[in-house]
């Protein structure tokens, strides 16, 4: 699997003997440059809150999580094209849902949602049901029904969904 967010340089392999303020890692990660705060000590050993752009090991772990999601999306796309799943499956994994979470959001039984993942059942869905799904994913019914949407250039973890 290709990495979506290539780490520009190999990360430091040594952890300093204490987390000094001046050594707080600033490895830019997934957060669009937003800095979170971490706890580190100054020269006198006193703790302070210090902004950090990220830390390479953590960034790697985050990238891995998004690669799992990308992998799931790609696998589902193939199954949809092979006629094994309905387009609902694409929107479900894209929105990081499983059948039970999706069922809770649209207020249907899980077994019904599972049925809607079958292409032949999906084709016969009535407008009110389609509207429920489309609204949840922030789409129009036309967009939601359009098989072509599964080929959109969606970049997990980078593109805005809402």
């Amino acid at each position: 699997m290709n990495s979506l967010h290539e780490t520009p340089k190999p990360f430091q392999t040594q952890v300093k003997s204490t987390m000094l303020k001046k050594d707080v890692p600033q490895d830019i990660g997934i957060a669009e440059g937003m800095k979170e705060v971490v706890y580190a000590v100054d020269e006198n050993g006193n703790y302070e809150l210090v902004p950090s752009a990220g830390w390479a090991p953590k960034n790697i772990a985050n990238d891995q999580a998004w690669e799992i999601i990308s992998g799931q999306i790609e696998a589902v796309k193939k199954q949809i094209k092979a006629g094994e799943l309905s387009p609902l499956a694409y929107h479900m994994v894209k929105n990081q849902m499983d059948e039970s979470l999706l069922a809770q959001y649209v207020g249907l039984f899980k077994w019904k949602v599972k049925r809607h993942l079958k292409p032949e059942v999906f084709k016969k869905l009535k407008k009110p049901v389609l509207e429920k799904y489309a609204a949840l994913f922030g789409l129009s019914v036309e967009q939601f029904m359009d098989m072509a949407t599964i080929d959109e250039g969606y970049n997990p973890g980078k593109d805005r969904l809402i």
Partner: protein
Amino acid sequence: MKIDFKHKQSAHCESGVTANLLTHYGLQISEALAFGIGGGLFFAYLPFVKINDLPLTTFRYTTGAIMKRTMTALGVQVKTEKFRSPQKAMAELDRVLAQGTPVGLQTGAWFLPYFPPAYRFHFNMHNMVVMGQENGQYLISDPVFPEPVLCDRMNLMKARFTQGALKPKGKMYYITDVPSSFDLQTAVKDGIRSVVKAMLKTPLPIVGIRGMRFLASRMERWPQKLGEEKAILYLGQLVRMQEEIGTGGAGFRFLYAAFLQEAADILKDDRLRECAATLTSIGDRWRDFAVSAARHCKGRAKEHDTFADMANIIRDCASREEALYLELTDIIK
């Protein structure tokens, strides 16, 4: 309408919201102090609870409990409400806000428009303080963000009524009464006592020091049991739990060390300062593990990065933490 609320960025949302709310009512409590009084430090490895098919490891105490314990210990009265109807939940938020009262919310992360896409997960235990309204948008002190943020009504409503595990059900809370005086020393001691007890005495093999050793023994067997590929996913998940936004680094160990420093001043006991330094070095050890694990995830594992080596780092953390908690028991006796 904007309440004169002092937004302060913090490492962790729950202890940050607690500290910011208390500060608003004149109690100068830092995030670290709120985390410590609330007995926030913890460890549990829960292989049967799966997130995205990967086991859950937690370095902090149960969600919601840290705030509750801190407020109770200081004698602060908090009104908490949950709702069935999203409309009623928003109306009640508006009503309390109009009185000039900052309102805490538990929300999901998924629908918050100001979250960077990379933070979008179905995570339902986020906390924030609503501090006003501007042009139809809510002004929010979200403690993990550097500055106050804006959120429109529709998305805030959705975020308050997310589905899935631990759904917030529109939960909101606000302070109704603050005592004129409180016993900070007792609160700090009780906070330390609850952590020591949880870490040393919980009668479950998956919790506390025993939980760390349990994780170490399981970790050694991951490659054989799960295969290399899945074992690496388990490692990545563990690193995220330990380091991802909200822990302040090293699975809350640095945050708790900062608390121990404050505790040393409050209880006038220099031994607690030494304990803080010890915990800092334990935090560094946890980070050694994260570095090793990340090399695995990148396919760059070195000779000393075997699963057995990593398990030994965790065991080392367990022994060191055990000694630390025994010492803390002695100090607060």
